[in-house]
């Protein structure tokens, strides 16, 4: 009798691992933190056990069921955190940017100053160019931009291209360049 729960457990582990790998491959470049993803996957595991107890065939679950379950788990996680006043798990290793674990206070100050200048240059762009550029700089590609903003891919590419040109021109006018930040 012990083999049935074991087999079920293996099935759930395999389903969750496959889904986790898929989500991670999409989210890694956007700054998705492993700690957040692990918490969501833990909740998904529990929900799959509950679904099994309610009579669902776990092995036959489609990917849309997994996405719905994970989305609901992610929403619950964020609500719980905000209610507790804790924003997010700190995952120092996953911080992008110029601030590296070995960077000293001088480098950190330069990185922070550069981030502020980029932000003020971004605020001068038109709203649609600005959002396209922010998404691009945060790891979303032009297909993500088109999907989330309900634009055609051609429009997303065009606004992104012009926005990036605009941003570079403004930074150059401000005297901000890679060489000047050394």
């Amino acid at each position, binding site marked *: 009798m012990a083999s049935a729960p074991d087999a079920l457990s293996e099935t759930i582990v395999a389903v969750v691992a496959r889904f986790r790998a898929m989500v991670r491959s999409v*989210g890694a470049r956007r*700054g998705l*933190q492993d700690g957040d993803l692990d918490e969501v996957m833990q909740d998904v595991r529990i929900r799959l056990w509950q679904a099994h107890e309610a009579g669902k065939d776990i092995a036959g679950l489609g990917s849309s069921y997994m996405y719905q379950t994970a*989305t609901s788990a*992610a929403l619950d996680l964020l609500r719980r955190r905000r209610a507790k006043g804790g924003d997010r798990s700190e995952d120092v290793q996953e911080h992008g940017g110029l601030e590296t674990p070995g960077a000293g206070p001088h480098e950190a100050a330069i990185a922070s100053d550069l*981030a502020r200048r980029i932000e003020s240059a971004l605020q001068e762009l038109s709203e649609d160019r600005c959002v396209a550029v922010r998404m691009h*700089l945060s790891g979303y590609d032009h297909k993500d931009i*088109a999907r*989330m903003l309900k634009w055609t891919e051609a429009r997303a590419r065009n606004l992104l291209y012009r926005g990036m040109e605009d941003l570079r021109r403004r930074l150059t006018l401000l005297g901000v360049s890679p060489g000047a930040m050394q």
Partner: protein
Amino acid sequence: MNQPFNDDQLRAAYQPTRQRGPDCPSPEALLAAARGEGPEAERIRVLNHALSCEGCRPELALLSSVSEPARSSVSFTDRLRQRAIPIALAATVLLAVGVASLVRKDESGTVRGGGSDVVLAAPADGSASATKS
């Protein structure tokens, strides 16, 4: 010589400059923006905030990554729209030309160049010339 930043340098340098505050969008608003739901102006506002906020940016990354399935169907619809319209237009023009030439053939039995009053004649010395009738 000051070279402008390339994409990778800008990506590396871009960091959120806002902190969590009362104007942060709710998790539900972040999810709606990630799914492309709601008015465009609201989505732009939410995304512009979330991507510049230290608290919201990883939340948006999480929600946008676990709510992905609409992507393939939207891309497919986009692709279909982008490709089908020019093909349909070209097919319509070809069909119209084909039907028109069939009608003209039926009317006269032969296909002519139209009502031109220019007649080609072969002169005695063998060189080609055109004569107005």
